């Protein structure tokens, strides 16, 4: 019977095990690292260092600046001495980034450059506080929060959506955060409500996290948000927590390609970001750490609060090291993360997870047109068709088939029984199309 049930389970169009192995592990603070490596780039914008080699810096002290004044300030995440600069290949933007290395002095002395304020402050003051705290989105994309909120100020926001879906397998950082820091999250929601003045506020969580509903409701009642916040447990099929998919699920509105959530009156924020807002406003604390899940083939899986820029190896050694058959370590979730080419990689603000996996290759065989990729695609594309065009170099045909709607969730490659790297081929086509547009 068990065999049959496992067969039926696996035969679904997209059956992705949740692998949430660390829901029971409380968030622990990773001891201060000996050094941090901070790539001088936020959401593709380069920063020029203002600290020089040998300078003493404090935690939360500005060490680099961007030409764009709307970009968040760039802070040291530990106190110590600037040890120098190294090159780091950013796995997402695929560029070499100048990075600053800070050796810790072990004291973690904080610069006192921002002060706590209260909700009585004006919207402008709250926004400035968010900018000063150097917050960028912690859900994986890393968009600067100040810019997002500033543009939301000018538009009517119908739905403020707090994204606690955490639809990637393995990752439990947001779950633990919502469980342990519910009050902080509610305070953060209050700040965002004041800034964006939404008609509705929705906290969306995965239906796998139904145990969170009660504690969150209690926290909402105690914080006085009460009725203005609705908590929704939504069915989780990856990528149900992706911004555009979540907006569609909650509001029924479609955010077209090249459009922003604000165009349909929605503003979506990750729960970790909300907690950072709360810390910034009420505690005067700038963003220097984040919560990640360390899971997979490590000896002791854990949810860790780490300083941004901590080398991967520190977190892994704290978790007892890697299993012998580890073949790769993924920075980020298993579906959209990137593999580290060295364990000296820094943990950036975008990394939601550190996942050690085996190095198995999958067998690739011919496409049998089974249609599983189509069933798995959240936006209803035909990945197999795009793959064929991409492989043949027919990028115009890819454009005709709406390739720009693809947002790299990876479901097609996951579902393909022939093990064809579909999303990878689609990425090649998207990049080629983009390059041709740039050079045209």
């Amino acid at each position: 019977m068990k065999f049959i049930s496992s067969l039926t389970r696996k035969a679904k169009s997209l059956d992705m095990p949740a692998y949430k192995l660390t829901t029971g592990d409380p968030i622990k603070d990773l001891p201060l690292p000996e050094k941090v490596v901070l790539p001088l780039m936020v959401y593709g914008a380069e920063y020029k260092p203002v600290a020089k080699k040998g300078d003493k810096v404090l935690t939360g002290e500005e060490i680099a600046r961007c030409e764009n004044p709307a970009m968040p300030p760039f802070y040291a995440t530990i106190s110590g001495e600037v040890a120098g600069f190294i090159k780091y290949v950013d796995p997402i933007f695929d560029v070499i980034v100048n990075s600053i290395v800070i050796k810790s002095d072990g004291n973690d002395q904080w610069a006192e450059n921002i002060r706590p304020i209260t909700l009585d402050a004006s919207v402008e003051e709250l926004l400035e506080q968010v900018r000063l705290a150097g917050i960028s989105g912690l859900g994986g994309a890393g968009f600067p929060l100040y810019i997002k909120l500033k543009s939301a100020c000018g538009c009517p926001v119908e739905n403020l959506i707090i994204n606690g879906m955490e639809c990637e397998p393995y990752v439990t950082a947001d779950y633990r955060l919502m469980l342990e820091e519910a009050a902080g999250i509610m305070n953060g929601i209050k700040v965002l409500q004041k800034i964006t003045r939404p008609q509705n506020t929705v906290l969306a969580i995965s239906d796998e996290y139904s145990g969170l509903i009660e504690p969150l409701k209690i926290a909402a009642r105690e914080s006085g948000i009460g009725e203005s916040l609705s908590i929704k447990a939504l069915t989780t099929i990856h990528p149900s927590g992706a911004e555009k998919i979540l907006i569609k699920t909650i509001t029924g509105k479609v955010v077209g390609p090249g459009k922003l959530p604000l165009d349909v009156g929605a503003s979506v924020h990750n729960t970790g970001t909300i907690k950072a807002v709360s810390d910034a406003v009420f505690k005067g604390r700038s963003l220097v750490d984040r919560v990640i899940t360390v899971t997979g083939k490590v000896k002791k899986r854990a949810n860790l609060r780490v300083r941004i820029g901590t080398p991967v190896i520190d977190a892994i050694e704290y978790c007892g090291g890697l299993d012998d058959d580890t073949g790769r370590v993924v920075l980020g979730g298993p579906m959209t993360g990137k593999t580290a080419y060295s364990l000296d990689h820094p943990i950036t603000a975008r990394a939601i997870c550190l996942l050690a996996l085996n190095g198995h290759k999958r067998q690739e065989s011919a496409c049998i047109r089974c249609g599983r990729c189509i069933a798995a695609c959240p936006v209803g594309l035909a990945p197999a068709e795009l793959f064929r065009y991409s492989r043949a170099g027919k990028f115009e045909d890819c454009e005709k088939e709406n390739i720009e709607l693809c947002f790299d969730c990876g479901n097609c490659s996951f579902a393909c029984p022939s093990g064809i790297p579909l999303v990878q081929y689609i990425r090649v086509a998207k990049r080629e199309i983009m390059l041709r547009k740039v050079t045209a």
Partner: protein
Amino acid sequence: MNSAFKDKSRLTTGPHLWGGFSTNRIMLITLATLLIPAAGGVYQYGEQALWVIVVCIVACYAADILCRKLRGQPLRPDMGTPITALLLALSLPPGLPLWIAALGSFFGICIVKEAFGGLGQNIFNPALGARAFLLASFAAPMTRWIEPGGFGADAITTASPLAGGTAAEPGGLELYQALLFGDAPGVIASGALFLMVGGLILVILRIVDFRAPVAYIVSVALIALAFGEDPAFHVLAGGVIFGAFFFITDPVTTPVHWPGRVIFAVGAGVLTMLIRLLGAAPDGVTYAILIMNALTPLIDRYIKPGPMGAKEVKSGPA
């Protein structure tokens, strides 16, 4: 530890997980379900059926290896070959001269499948293509049916139920029973019940999309009703159930989008009944599905659901 990791680490791009429901596994399950009607056929027709099945399997493998040699491809066999062999064998009459079965196998694998590019590239279902070839080339032996009699029985030639060759009264319970258990003269897989059990397993395990077989069976039944014929007889007799679960659901030769698959199934249903009721041949399942196979690229081209947000792209300013 860091350097040791570096030595054996692999760089991969996401997704780093794989569902693991492999093509081989899909084909293995399909093959296993085909064994049910095969067992039913052997039970009904004894060694006559068994020999046809064995010859088809051996001949299909031989043809596959020959083609791979000729095309300079690795000889690694894929599970598509035994599936084609079983599908072809089960749709042949028991007692068929074995060299004809072998010839059909070679035609199916070499011409219908490999000549078009092999697994995943063939336009027509290899087994059905081979059957059509045999029907056209060897009309007499291909329509020479024998009475089911189990092992060691003498082959008594008779006519198929669709051609009126049954003692049971039309519409009677006895006839349905005979059709369900394959107790009426027909191809090896003529027991509709065995085919339905196999098909249901495929549907439950979501190997196949249930919409296509349902659409096919319903359209056959509705047209039978419209022409004043017995719908249950038309569904159970001939290859309708076989076609519904094992040929119309062949992913390679049918449309990829589900609305296209339903259109394919309805089209096949209409053609099956038109051939049965108005054409000269007693059964039309083979030709109906083959004709729809040919239309598959056309259906795929025009029937695709619009992706989410596509309307916004087209209507918005470029």
